[in-house]
């Protein structure tokens, strides 16, 4: 699999896929997409990068251990639900912060934080499975 073409293309492809996964993540509230599918795309980017350039370089590029990333995702996902405690609403009631920068409406919300949490959980969990499998293969 480690042909020169693949090795040259893979970093760009992986970067593009991560970028696309973030796009899918952010459009997911009202349109197809969201944290889960975005996370899967990002995890496949990690897998491709790992096949081409070795697992060690993926781990270096990620800085944090994938399981730590998943843990962080779960943590902020849970925190996103708690914010409604302060407005006397049930757990996970969505809170919105909408403001305008010039003519663009920016809508920040707890579902977005939750979605980012899901994204990180999926990236971390699927990513660590993929990397572990690739590591075995190269032994």
């Amino acid at each position: 699999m480690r042909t020169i073409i693949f090795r040259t293309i893979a970093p760009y492809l992986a970067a593009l896929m991560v970028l696309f996964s973030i796009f899918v993540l952010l459009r997911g509230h009202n349109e197809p997409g969201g944290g889960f599918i975005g996370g899967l795309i990002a995890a496949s980017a990690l897998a491709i990068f790992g096949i081409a350039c070795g697992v060690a370089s993926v781990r270096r590029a990620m800085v944090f251990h994938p399981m730590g990333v998943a843990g962080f995702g779960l943590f902020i996902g849970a925190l996103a639900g708690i914010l409604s405690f302060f407005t006397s609403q049930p757990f996970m009631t969505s809170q919105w912060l909408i403001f305008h920068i010039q003519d663009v409406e920016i809508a920040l919300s707890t579902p977005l934080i939750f979605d980012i949490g899901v994204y990180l959980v999926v990236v971390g969990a699927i990513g660590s499975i993929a990397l572990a499998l690739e590591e075995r293969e190269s032994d």
Partner: protein
Amino acid sequence: MAGSSVSVDLTQAMVTAPVAAADWLIVAPSLITMLGGSLCLMLRKNTQLQPKLGIVFLVLLVLSSAGLLVHVLNHGVITMVMGGWLPPFGIAFTVDPLGATLTLVGSIVALCAGIYGVVTVDGTGRRYGFYPFLLLLMTGVCGAFLTGDVFNLYVWFEVLLISSYGMLILGNDRIQLDGAVKYGVLNLVGTNLFLIATGLLYGIFGTLNMADIAMKVSELGNPASGTIATVAALYFLAFAMKAAAFPVNFWLPASYHTPNIVISAVFAGLLTKVGVYALIRIFVLILPESLDYMADVIGLVAILTLLTGALGALAQSELRRLLGYLVIAGIGSMLAGVAIGSNLAISGAIFYAVHSIIVMTALYMAAGVMFYMGGSYDLRRLGGLYQRSAGFAGLFLVLAFAVSGLPPFSGFWPKVMLVEAAFGDGRAWLGAAILVSGFLTTLAMGRVWIYAFWRGGPEGTPDGTGVAVSGGGAAQLGGAAPWLPMFVLTALIVYFGLQPEWMMNLSIEGAGGVLEPRGYLQSVFGEQG
């Protein structure tokens, strides 16, 4: 959505009344453990900090579930619907005395395991994530006890199962993987049946909210229709697998002796009881009519489970496998309560579940100490532990009496309730099976006592002489960590034995809450429900 400015009447779809801060206790047990588990997961490499952090979160868990129980006892059944959507569309967490009691007992056991694990789980085990798994297991267990939605119950089952898979193979021994395959395959089949049954249930009623189903079942004309009978049978098989009832019990003694002893203790205490809890929820609360024609089947399964468990325990010489069979025998007693189905019987089953959670965990912990003292889990190679520590021998005797159902300890009262209910209901066979099983359990525990404690030394030691036994891990018993949890659990056993009124009233209230679910339905749908 964008651009539309139609005004929507939110009171039709959303909960608009403000939620009191105390009602947040409903989600607190699951939420605290989820936050704690993810935090421990992030700090996985820091093996010094992990136990402290884990125990802090487990203490918070115990406090919050104690607060929840007090709140439920004072204010009746309480409900919180996720995201503010009105039931039955929002996912409801509905807490009645039954769920709150089991959550509290489960939390106490988990805290004890967290403290015990400081000694028995070494640095490698911590790095592989003992504390994150323990906390996330409790997320699943508490979620299962507190949820009011059938599909959500399935999700919490998955959460606790995935954590339990992780705990089961912690350490990566060959024998652990062998146990995990058996455990995993059977539980996968069980959860699939659960999912299929839930799909059928949704097909019939168009809702998965337990309170909503309970109301629609009573409106349905012919309760014994084929589809509902199928659903009931599927649920029974699925939960019987989880609870390790005969004939789908073989996975439990095949897997529970493989992991670290504290993990066995948590599993033995909690996992099978979640299956029994789900059985009570489904059969008594939402499909009560199906209990009429399922009762004989459940009763037969209960008798066979009682006898298999007790006879299996009598035949084993591996201490942990022996205890695994005792877990199964306990499940038989609880199933007997479900089969009878009267208020007294369900109360007995709930009390027995509480007793079994505490005593089985304590027994596995004691087995761990016996291993450290005597150097083996094999009864043939154990001996002379009475000389080694008379105090520990006394503690073990208390546990042995409790698990056999002898007075004055916690196992006695639920058995009295169950046997009385069985004879009062004309199911003498069931009552007799409970008594016979108790007798055989006494023999099995007496055997352990004679072999491990009473005789002078391991097999081959002449009568009347004593050999000083020394286990490999004697140094590990230095601190208070393994003793404190066992003392706490044993103290609870003695307390429930001597002062059973409190727990008895609690289980009667819990049984009343599922047998007469008016409070449950009102809590979800308001007064008119």
